[in-house]
């Protein structure tokens, strides 16, 4: 029997795993997909919300503000891309002034620091591309942007470094109370654990309902996005929202930590928990709305469009707590879940620690070094690196200038990349303007070589997504 099973290797599960790795405990993370950050964590706005939005007094508000405050130090400890770029909630009509003031007051009550209302002149100075109709905005200097993949890989790698084990392709099919804990059945066999943490994102209702007295329903709320090429870098410098309407935060226009511009999302409730398909209507909606707060959004520079699903629950609140002895929910984590994740990790780990009476592990190492990106080195260090490791001299992805050395590093991390998407999310090969047209065959070759498998076994994103179906003329 292991001490703790965490179900779900999204940003919440990985944050919890990392916090629990501070203690002397045997922790196993079960994930249904082939890699970490394959669900809600994979496709979202990549924003660290300052915390003015969530209702004052809610757990969501508390964890958002706390998570946002923890993020800068976490980024230093774990070496992932994060930037405090500030955010603006733009008011488009003087009539909306009361709503803007209310948002400001809510933010102040939530404890968000540095909030202030900026009027049009200052707004135009901050953001030259702001709409001609923009009147004023709520400015949150602590708002930030983060690479959601980078954050999650960092948490997972640091957890693994401190002893947490990850088991992929292990969808949980049943949970049963047993003496002294729980029996968790997966498609790969059973695991017994003293404590189970439900961090299953869109499926957190399913797991909750396996053990709870009440019934929870998570509604997949889809958001469609456009991602624009680096050539748009500097188009906006803050994350720009419109003053919220009925469906969340409207359409945002924001820079990403990698120099792209992200535009979206929609908010459409769907049935399918795997329904990450964009639709013409959804993309048209983003296209129509993105020009409201910002003018001349360069959508012609779109390099990809995608959709993500938020794990929405009707009460729009995080559900965190021990719902049965030894079964801890971390459910309904929707936006601002990414922003809150450092605080969610601490809170859930605290609950588990108290249940099991865990002792601090003095050998815990809080540091993790990210995959080396030679672009950040000065010329001399860069040259020395290639001399020592020639693989850093071979560019595989032209658009993002990703070298073979980085890809090899990504594959041999723990947990490491096993698919083309796993490589892409770790080092950005295929993330650029040609979207892997040139590099994907070469990434497949490197994966096959480093993993010691045939190229035909290489997948885009796990079993069933094989990229090659056979060899020439094999069916003739």
């Amino acid at each position, binding site marked *: 029997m292991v001490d703790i099973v965490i179900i779900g290797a999204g940003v919440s599960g990985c944050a919890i795993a990392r916090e629990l790795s501070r203690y002397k405990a045997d922790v196993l993370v079960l994930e249904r997909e082939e890699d970490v950050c394959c669900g809600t964590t994979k496709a979202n706005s990549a924003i660290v919300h300052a915390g003015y939005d969530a209702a004052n007094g809610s757990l969501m508000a508390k964890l958002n503000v706390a998570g946002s405050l923890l993020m800068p130090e976490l980024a230093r400890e774990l070496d992932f891309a994060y930037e405090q770029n500030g955010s603006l909630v733009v008011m488009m009509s003087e009539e909306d002034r009361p709503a803007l003031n209310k948002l400001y007051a809510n933010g102040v009550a939530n404890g968000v620091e540095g909030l202030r209302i900026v009027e049009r002149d200052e707004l135009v100075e901050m953001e030259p591309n702001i709409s001609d109709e923009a009147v004023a905005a709520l400015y949150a200097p602590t708002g930030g942007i983060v690479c959601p993949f980078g954050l999650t890989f960092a948490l997972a790698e640091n957890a693994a470094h401190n002893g947490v084990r990850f088991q992929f392709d292990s969808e949980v099919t049943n949970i049963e109370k047993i003496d002294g804990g729980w029996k968790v059945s997966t498609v790969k066999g059973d695991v017994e654990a003293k404590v189970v943490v439900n961090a299953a994102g869109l499926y957190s209702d399913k797991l909750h309902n396996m053990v709870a007295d009440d019934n929870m329903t998570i509604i997949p709320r889809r958001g469609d996005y456009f991602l624009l090429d680096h050539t748009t870098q500097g188009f906006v410098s803050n994350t720009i929202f419109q003053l919220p309407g009925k469906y969340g935060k409207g359409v945002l226009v924001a820079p990403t930590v990698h120099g792209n511009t992200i535009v979206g999302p929609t908010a459409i409730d769907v049935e399918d928990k795997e329904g990450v398909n964009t639709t013409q209507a959804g993309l048209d909606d983003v296209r129509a709305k993105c020009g409201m707060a910002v003018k001349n959004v360069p959508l012609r520079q779109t390099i990809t469009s995608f959709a993500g699903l938020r794990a929405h629950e009707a009460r729009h609140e995080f559900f965190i707590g021990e719902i049965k002895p030894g079964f801890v929910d971390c459910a309904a984590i929707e936006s601002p879940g990414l922003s809150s994740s450092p605080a969610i990790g601490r809170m859930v780990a605290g609950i588990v620690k108290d249940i099991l009476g865990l002792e601090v592990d003095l050998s815990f190492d809080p540091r993790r070094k990210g995959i080396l990106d030679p672009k950040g080195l000065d010329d001399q260090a860069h040259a020395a690196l290639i001399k020592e490791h020639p693989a850093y001299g071979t*560019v595989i992805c032209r658009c993002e200038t990703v070298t073979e050395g980085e890809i090899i590093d990504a594959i041999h991390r723990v947990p490491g990349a096993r698919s083309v998407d796993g490589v892409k999310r770790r080092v950005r090969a295929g993330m650029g303007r040609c979207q892997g047209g040139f590099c994907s065959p070469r990434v497949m070759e490197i994966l096959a070589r480093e993993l010691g498998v045939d190229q035909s076994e290489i997948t885009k994103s796990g079993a069933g997504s094989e990229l090659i179906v056979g060899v020439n003329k094999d069916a003739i």
Partner: protein
Amino acid sequence: MREYELVIIGGGPAGLAAAVAAHEAGLRDILILERDNELGGILNQCIHNGFGLHTFKEELTGPEYAGRFIEQVKKLDIPYKLNTMVLDLAADKTVTAMNREDGLFQLHPKAVILAMGCRERPRGALNIPGYRPAGIFTAGTAQRLVNMEGYLPGRKVVILGSGDIGLIMARRMTLEGAKVQVVAELMPYSGGLKRNIVQCLDDYGIPLKLSHTVVDIEGKKRVEAITIAQVDEKNRPIPGTEERYECDTLLLSCGLIPENELSRSAGVELNPITNGPTVNESLETSIPGVFAAGNVLHVHDLVDYVSEEAGAAGRHAANYIASGCKAEEHKSLPVKCENGVRYTVPVAVRPDAAGDSVTLRFRVGNVYKNKKVAVYAGDACIFSRKRPVLAPGEMETVVLKTSLLTDHPEAEGITVTLEEA
């Protein structure tokens, strides 16, 4: 690292032809930088024939065509570096590159030829809604997998876009045992060569549906079905015209984009129509001593024309260096396009710097029948040729005697236009 007088960025058909021509023009200090692991560029994966009819008067495969130029480069001892990525080109022509052997290095040539080629427009840039499973490939990526590695990327195929690579891959996938169900083309005409439609689709009974696009991609892990629909004159899908094809693969052949990231970093002026540099009659960009040729300049239909154009760029670069790298002051005539002529290369002609003849290359924006291609120097018509059919998929070339321009010293510009025949 030793310095070179001429650095050619790209060792595909354009770079190779430019190098050979520059050498033949007397320049000896040339270096080709190639990012792939062999010379020849995209020709290496074009194993079908049809190359070289103009250049060599025979039908060659892509690798054979490239081989002819590679042989010459080797015979002439023109140095080249493989697996070498140029990371930056500065306005002063400083080239920053890297590879495994030399590490990170800089070169300071007197002249540079841009010959980086082009890339395919990916699914993301097409805004096709639906899932993002495995099984969506650009035609060129599939071509590499099939022709260079022997792997079949799918068995039941739908192709969007009737660019030449898509047409060629319709035939190739069929020959390798896949079933190509349909080629959908957004425009009311094909973007590919007529001969490819006949030889790659018609001969294999593959339907080409014009004015159609993909409106849905199904399949969460791997493509399971593609839905296409007819589009109206504004390219919007017409409800009720949807047709669903069960398949495991979608190939995209929806246009090529010149790869001008380095040109942009150097500050080279680009033409928004071609996405390539604006050049004068000598194929020189807005930065003196930086020349461009091949698909990085504008997307060509036949490689023969790439070689021809790149040869000219190589000669001009050699002359530029031989004449002391001076930017010469000449009267420059802007070239205007009218009546369906989408663009011209060059965008300006300096008659006094042009030698005996001036080559104008262009494409039209629609299918035209029974027209005349006419060229004016000022108001005077200096060239006219009947063309029974003009199509966007085919590049047009007009070669003018330079004397036709110098005979009209009053002309302030050149106009290329289509007229009723």
